């Protein structure tokens, strides 16, 4: 994982031993699924097949009516906030009376760290995260199970793992939040480097370096622009622009809406929520063009190697990627669908209008180079 290639010997050894155990437990899955029924409180997997229970996913969205009925119980570790995801889970539970979800809510990074410590003993079947970086990291630790063929085929490679260990479920884009009293969105630069260099943003710009999507953004910048350029951007933000560093995304968005900050580099949906609560807030979002400043990231799903209900988990994942699931993200969260055939209807510009860079999201799994740069340049909170 170390960027200088020296690696961390201890870690590598751990990974190998983990994989061995995982391989062994993989072989045992068939047996344990059968056994689970006798073990009392574990409801076991109601399905015998990892493949589709009825219709398979297609490259264009299929309906819940065509999919298999869900029954049994799944445990989900969610790194997404409740307001964004619980309504979808409730919708699915309402549709299938014999189906129950146990949801564990925690921060995205906390969930990944917990899953890593739990290894093959995790009680979770599914990891549902707001950032593909966490999914890529889960995959590189050997904790994510390969998804069924039809799921892999349904979502484009730039919104899922080409090796099929995780899939995006909805898309979100990095944005520039701005105070509409101070700036006109039309006049804002569409180049992320301008925000670190242009004097007019000095002392009034902020970012939130401790968020997963911010680290993804820096990782993408290193990939696309090189390490030196990225170091320059960070250093300019810290030293020249005197950027305010927040530890809370909501606090940052509020400072742009009501406080001392006029520009905030962050996730669009924080601004969306404030406007939802207070339509008069002087806040809007703008996007850069074809650079890491408008990185298209996905929230997504992985089925854990540790799951003893992988078939049910797979069928559940199909429901998220089916038309009703995808429409939910568009309607309720203002996010972008990852499957064709669902129209985007929100207030935001469509993905075509935004022009995000094309990028392999698996590169976001290794945050160490970004983390090192940020630490060295003092952009940490």
């Amino acid at each position, binding site marked *: 994982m*170390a960027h200088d290639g*020296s690696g*961390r*010997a*201890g*870690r590598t050894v*751990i990974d190998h031993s983990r994989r061995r155990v995982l391989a062994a437990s993989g072989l045992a899955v068939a047996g344990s699924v059968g056994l689970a029924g006798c073990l009392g409180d574990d409801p076991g997997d109601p399905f015998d097949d990892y493949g589709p229970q009825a219709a398979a996913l297609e490259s264009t969205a299929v309906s819940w009516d065509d999919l298999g009925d869900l029954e049994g119980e799944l*445990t989900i570790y969610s790194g997404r*906030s*409740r*307001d*964004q995801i*619980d*309504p979808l889970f*409730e919708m699915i539970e309402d549709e299938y009376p014999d189906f129950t979800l*146990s*949801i*564990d*809510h*925690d921060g995205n*990074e*906390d969930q*990944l*760290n*917990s899953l*890593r*410590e*739990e*290894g093959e*003993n995790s*009680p979770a079947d599914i990891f549902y995260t707001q950032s593909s970086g966490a999914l890529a*990291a889960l995959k590189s630790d050997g904790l994510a199970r390969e998804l069924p063929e039809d799921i892999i085929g349904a979502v484009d490679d730039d919104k899922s793992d080409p090796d099929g260990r995780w899939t995006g479920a909805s898309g979100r884009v990095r944005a520039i939040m701005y105070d509409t009293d101070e700036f006109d969105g039309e006049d804002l630069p569409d180049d992320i480097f301008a925000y670190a260099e242009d004097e007019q943003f000095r002392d009034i710009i902020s970012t939130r370096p*401790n*968020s*997963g999507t911010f*680290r993804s953004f820096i990782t993408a910048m290193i990939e696309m622009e090189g390490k030196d350029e990225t170091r320059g951007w960070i250093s300019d933000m810290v030293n020249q622009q005197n950027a*305010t*560093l927040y*530890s*809370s995304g*909501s*606090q940052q*968005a*509020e400072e742009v809406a009501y*406080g*001392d900050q006029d520009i905030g580099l962050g996730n669009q949906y*924080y601004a969306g*929520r*404030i406007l*939802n*609560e*207070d339509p008069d807030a002087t806040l809007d979002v703008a996007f850069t063009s074809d650079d890491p400043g408008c990185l298209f990231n996905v929230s997504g799903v992985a089925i854990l190697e540790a799951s003893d209900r992988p078939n049910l988990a797979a069928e559940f994942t199909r429901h998220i990627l089916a038309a009703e699931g995808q429409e939910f993200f568009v309607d309720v969260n203002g996010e972008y669908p990852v499957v064709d055939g669902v129209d985007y209807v929100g207030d935001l510009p469509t993905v075509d209008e935004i022009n995000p860079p094309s990028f392999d999201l698996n590169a976001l799994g290794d*945050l*160490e180079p970004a*983390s090192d740069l940020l*630490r*060295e340049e*003092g952009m*940490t*909170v």
Partner: protein
Amino acid sequence: MTSDDADAASVGLLLLSGAIAALVVSPLLWLVLRASDVEAARAASLMTSADTVEILTNSVGLMATVTIASILIGVPLAFLTVRTDLPYRRFWTIVAALPLVVPSYIGAFAFVSAFGPRGELSSLLGVGLPEVYGFYGAALIITLYTYPYVFLTTRAALLSMDSSLVDAARTLNSGRFEAFRRVTLPQIRPAIAAGALLVALYAISDFGTPAFMQVRVFTSAIYWEYGAFNVEYAALLSLQLIAVTAIVIAIEAGVGHDDDASAGGADGARLRLGAWKWPAMGAFAGIGFVTLVVPVAIFGLWFFQGTGGEVASLEFELEYVVNSVTLAALAALVASALAIPVGYMAARSDSLSARLFERMTYVGFAVPGIVIGLALVFFGSNYLPWVYRTVPLLVFAYVVRFLPQAVGSTRTSVLQVDERLDEAARTLNAGRVETFRRITLPLIAPGVIAGGVLVFLTTMKELPATLMLQPIGYDTLVTIIWAAHESVYYRYAALPALILIVISGLSMIVLLRQEKYNVS
């Protein structure tokens, strides 16, 4: 009873106290395990980087500032409520103790909302207020919400101290200040030190406030590495943090050495404040306004102002209260029970190991909740799957973090029991256990309960370990506050936050009633 039996009992008790200490520090083995994954050269460069030096300086600076400021606030307030004719003393005592029930991250948020550059107060007054962020802002907020540790311990010591000594000093023509410095201070010093230690360890392990106020300290660096999935580095930093706290714990052991603090109990003449009663009451009122009225007003504002979409899963349910109270009560019970042998041995034995075991229980209090949480995720899921993500393991996490609050208060109360009472009971042929049960336990019960209450109200506030180890789907007041705040649906945070403060406030009144003398 022969002396051999007594020795055997002592050894047994010492072993028990050692076992408890070992149990509560055992999760920290995980830190060593993870930290050893970092290459030595890499570890050395990380630990000695300019960045780490800055973090160390900030952390130690923050801890020292908060501790000193807490003593400067806590000791005079305690003195005013015990030794003077301050009007409405019972009321002011409660006001001065209550800030401890407000989680400091909520305090920080409310404080910034109210006093921030364009906060509620500034828009009310129509003028900009000075910058509240940064080192001093963080130091101020942590102080305001932790000085009650010093206030409570000092107050208890003043109440139990023989004040006729002060009167004696005064008759010998010592001035008031002189009498305080030469007579009172030496007697209450161990109590101040005990409170100050809790303040110091809290200050260095607090994450929410420094992060919110944008100060880079150990905890924020630990969270940072943790968020970048560098748990190994987070572990390394945590070990460094523990090294710093070990020094602090050792310093306190030097300052706070215990003389026999047993009480004379004569209630000497109270100091007449005269016209000074106005500024004195003003000080209590000012602190109460900032630490209690402001956050409650801000929550009230959230509660009534909220508009926009409904979020069903954030809607308040009575279950959150039941869950929070159940967890906090269990943690308080277990911690009090474990604190009895540890605190008893620390007070009654001269042995180094008794003292060491007691000190060991303090380490968990200085370690951020995520560290304890993740350590128990590892041990629980891999070695104890039958308790993993169940209430008992979560309660254990609270005990690891908050045990010292119970130990400290139990130890102090044991010190106040005259050993001659034990001897008398034994000459009447009572066994060691019976003596303890019939003589010592009733006498130390107020201290044990007070410690339990402190554990109760800190458990009510605890967030990170709760989020990691809670039984899946088992929500508490703080997890809902966290979820609502995280998603900017503040109005859903208001009610749980107010309930949290009310319940903790009631438990604080229980604590004040445990004191030897009534507040009046």
